[in-house]
């Protein structure tokens, strides 16, 4: 057989290449139809194939991390008395204040409106230029808020989210990206004011645990199931994806999902001990030098 790339006539070369490509595709199609037939008659075979044939991904070839928490009594004791104990142990209902950076633009207000919609018992407060963060923290403590969210913007787009847990911290700062507001999502549903359910995925390390607990403490303890609304925070490769859906039972086995929106992605930049302080001590801080491998994750 002639090697196609040695043929000098361009038309001929193209023709032969297309033929070869089609033949390959047909072979693949045939192989798959045969396999499908076999598997439909013999479902065990399909199961076997699916269990054996697991592709390598960055997540399942992740570098060993000793901080991953697995049934550790010491960590459990630590978490029992940490800064979120008021929520988890004493059942304090969350009350959230959302505000912006100084002189916000329209898109930040839009995003803030969406955030108010997501978290029950939130209050949006317009940021006045004369109040610094330390003042706002004091005011919020006096008014029994449990969390503050500050949306930061750059070039008139929201670009960062700072989450402050009150009264004793911690403070987490996230990069905010890939925002899609509800109105931009095709076929999105209308939200109701029911308390949503919460799904947290893959917050496995000690740092991830803290971040996961921080997010959990933003939602009320008992969701209102009749609302059938679910908020999801899915961590994959240190990016935290937020999605919100409504589930609809089609029949006893099948469930349909309708996205409610918004969508956005968070990436942890730093975690500070105590409430926000520019000169405060950082419990964890991302630095480019920590990015030694694509298979190393921190959450």
């Amino acid at each position, binding site marked *: 057989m002639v090697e196609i790339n040695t043929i000098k006539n361009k038309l001929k070369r193209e023709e032969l290449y297309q033929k070869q490509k089609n033949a390959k595709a047909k072979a693949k199609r045939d192989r798959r139809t045969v396999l499908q037939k076999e598997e439909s008659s013999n479902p065990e075979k399909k199961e076997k194939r699916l269990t054996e044939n697991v592709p390598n991904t960055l997540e399942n070839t992740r570098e060993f991390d*000793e*901080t991953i928490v697995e049934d*550790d009594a*010491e*960590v459990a*004791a*630590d978490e029992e*008395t940490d800064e979120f104990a008021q929520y988890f142990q004493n059942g304090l209902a969350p009350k959230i204040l959302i505000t912006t950076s100084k002189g916000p633009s329209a898109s930040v207000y839009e995003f803030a409106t969406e955030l108010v919609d997501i978290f029950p018992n939130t209050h949006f407060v317009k940021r006045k230029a004369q109040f610094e963060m330390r003042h706002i923290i004091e005011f919020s403590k006096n008014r029994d808020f449990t969390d503050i969210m500050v949306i930061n913007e750059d070039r008139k787009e929201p670009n960062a989210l700072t989450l402050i847990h009150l009264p004793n911290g911690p403070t987490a700062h996230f990069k905010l990206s890939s925002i899609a507001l509800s109105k931009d999502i095709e076929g999105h549903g209308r939200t109701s004011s029911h308390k949503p359910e919460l799904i947290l995925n893959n917050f496995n390390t*000690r740092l991830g645990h803290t971040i996961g607990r921080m997010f959990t403490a933003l939602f009320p303890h008992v969701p209102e199931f009749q609302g059938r609304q679910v908020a999801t925070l899915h961590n994959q490769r240190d990016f935290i994806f937020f999605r919100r859906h409504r589930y609809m039972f089609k029949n006893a086995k099948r469930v349909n999902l309708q996205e409610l929106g918004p969508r956005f992605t968070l990436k942890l930049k730093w975690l500070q*001990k105590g409430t926000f302080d520019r*000169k*405060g*001590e*950082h*419990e*964890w*801080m991302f*630095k480019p*030098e*920590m990015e030694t491998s694509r298979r190393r994750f*921190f959450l």
Partner: protein
Amino acid sequence: MSSRRFYTGDEQGLVKVVTITELPVVKVKRVRRNQPAPEAPTKPVPTVETWGAPDRNKAVQLLCWDHEKKHLVVARKNGLVQLMDPKDGAVISEFQHTLGKDNKIDNFFVGLFANAESIITCVNTGELTVQSIQDRTKSTVVNVGKDICRMRVHPKEHHIIATAGKEQELTIWDLNVLCRDPSEDAEPQAETIKGKKRGKNGKAGSIKESSPSTAGLGKKANGTSGPEARYKSKEVLARGQLFKAKNVKNDHLDLRVPVWNTELQFLSHFDFSRIAVGTRFHQIRVYDIKNGARRPAVDAEVGEMPVVAMANGRDAGEVIFSDTVTNVYSVDTLTGQILGQYKGFAGVTTALETFTPFEDDEATHLVSVAMDRCLRVHEMSKTRKLLHKVYLKQRMTAVVVGEYTPVEPTEDDEEGGNSRSKKNAGNDDENDDDLWESMGKLEDKKSKKRKINKE
């Protein structure tokens, strides 16, 4: 294999003992090209032992050794100062201090020191306590000024202490004078003046007037001139003070520079003339007390964030400090320049200490604990390599370097080879015998060969 122990304290009130086993130093032999490189021996896993039960009210704030490392002294958040046995963590004795609250914020320990007789503690309110270990009832409390951020005792001369803090300039105190009763103090003071300055009536009188305050300096600055002459300003040293620093000159707008010293360290073990101070405004200042200046000899701005912890470097010419954005720098105390940065930290380093890993070796290592729940050991060479990293599950607050266990001879027999030669280095006779034996064998072989050839 030799091992080194570290004692750490954390926010949960646990004291952890980390034992890091060092590999025997293997000299790299030249490997032939086609031969596979010799396998690197696997790193031994550090062992961690935990003492105490988790309790946030008992959070460890400071750790130190007492005289000759017999007991570990632990200062806790609830005001408890405990003496622990470094072997099994049993509490030998404990002293309760009442810390109290200021503006809803708990007061905390800023300095801890112990020697054979007493424990010296300092709280951020400036309450300095000298507690006798043997006699529980015997304790002296003096005030060294409010908002103290760090108190340290000179490692050799235990009556010299230094304090610094928010709007508190670096001050050196003489404990012998400070703890003495003021009423007793007047008489010996008068005597010394009589002895030394008889005849110079005018001058002696002036000292007497300002009397007990100058008691401390009287000994040191004797002969030359009175403290008033030395310090041109009208500020007179308080009782027990040996030295009080003066704020740096106003800035280019002629505004006063705020003072907020966060950390200090005696640079020399032999005298207390050079002291390094780190500030919240990211300056490293070195005070030279001997040259008579009250302002710092070196004042350098390093980094961008407040200094958190500081440790002595390899010698008096270097200090190592950490800041709030997880950097750890090494700074030259003569020029104030950054010599280098230690890498690998993800959280704020809360405590640092340098030590010599092998007793006969000149190399020094740096041990640090950080808020990212890890203990790290760095080499203090040019490369500043991270040697060990141990995950300790808690936000760490304090670390001290424990004892060093040298190579055990019993283990070596089994290992043979490289370590065997080490063992033999100890006893020369055997070493020689071995040498001669091996040479004898060689000759035998050769002679055999010769015999064969001849045949």
